[in-house]
């Protein structure tokens, strides 16, 4: 093994030690701006899609993905009594961001540990996808609510049906946390 490979390997072991990912199938959380009553917001509009890369070339500028997210959020907001407006100033501007990152999980068993029966134990790498939905008050330009969901994406993006279902599920779980 060359010294470069060795140093790469050592740094990866250190990264692995820091990344003790949990085993939750989907993590969802949200943040509410301080002293805000979200019930006084009734209308919304979409912010233009952001120009940042998602980190996954399959999803960058992918209108199948972008429109699925927007339709899912539209559906959830309609159920919560929100009205989408195209003219005039909305109460809130909705913005979303998707990000895909490769993660290394070392929390699984190591070869040689008594519980490692197959000899095929050790770290795993997987793609983690994060979907983040922001509500911004256009008058104050303040973030009033942020919700996000994170999950593993093994085989999801490559399968359009699975991707659509994953988007719908993530958006539903995120918007469940929005006060109504």
């Amino acid at each position, binding site marked *: 093994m060359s010294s470069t490979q060795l140093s790469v390997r050592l740094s990866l072991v250190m990264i692995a030690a820091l990344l003790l990912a949990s085993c939750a199938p989907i993590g969802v959380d949200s943040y509410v701006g301080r002293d805000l009553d979200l019930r006084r917001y009734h209308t919304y509009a979409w912010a233009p899609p952001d120009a940042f890369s998602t980190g996954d070339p399959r999803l960058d*500028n992918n209108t199948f993905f972008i429109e699925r997210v927007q339709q899912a959020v539209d559906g959830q907001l309609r159920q919560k009594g929100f009205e989408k407006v195209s003219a005039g100033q909305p109460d809130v501007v909705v913005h979303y961001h998707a990000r895909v990152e490769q993660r290394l999980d070392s929390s699984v068993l190591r070869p040689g540990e008594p519980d490692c029966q197959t000899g095929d134990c*050790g770290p795993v790498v997987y793609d983690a996808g994060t979907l983040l939905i922001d509500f911004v008050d256009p008058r104050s330009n303040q973030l009033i609510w942020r919700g996000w969901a994170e999950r593993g994406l093994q085989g999801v993006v490559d399968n359009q049906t699975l991707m659509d279902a994953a988007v719908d599920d993530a958006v539903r779980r995120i918007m469940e946390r929005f006060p109504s």
Partner: protein
Amino acid sequence: MQNAGIAFAIRPCEVREMRVRPSIGAAVVVWVCVVAGCAPMRVSSHVDRELDFTRYRTFDWGPADALPAGDARLERNAFFQDHVQGAIERNMAAKGFERAPATAEPDVRIHFHAVVDRRLDVNRLDAQSGYCSRNDCQGGVSEYEEGTLVIDMIDVRTNRLVWRGWAQDSVEGVLDNEDRLARKIEDAVRLMLMRLPAAR
């Protein structure tokens, strides 16, 4: 062939379930790949499922999208650009599409872009193929370069994306080897466009 690009992007929860029943078949396939030096290319696509593709017949090249396409070794590489373009034109013709005459508006515009990312790979092959025993297998993590080639097809009348295909594979030792690059492009474009519905 340390970086065979076998991207075992498996989620931890699934791994624990899978280990209960190790697949001998998969191990054999992996072993054959190691010996023969093949890397699995992952190919897939998204499509407007409500659309009837038989309404399309002619195509032309379109402008690239706004995002930076990634790797300068491919962006300014005439060999790469020519080979991808040639492969797409041949495979589109086989699908029944015609290149639009210069004077006419095409039904669809096509553009492609390539991205190269550094990815991590966990190498489980050593244990499976008996190169190490239970106690000295390290579950080595290595880094490799993964190339993604994306082909987009846009309806000229509606200006909407109607099909996107992609192929992803390790490009270790490929970008600076024209023969290997040409073969990789041929495979990627052929496998991607096999997934495209045919023209009328």
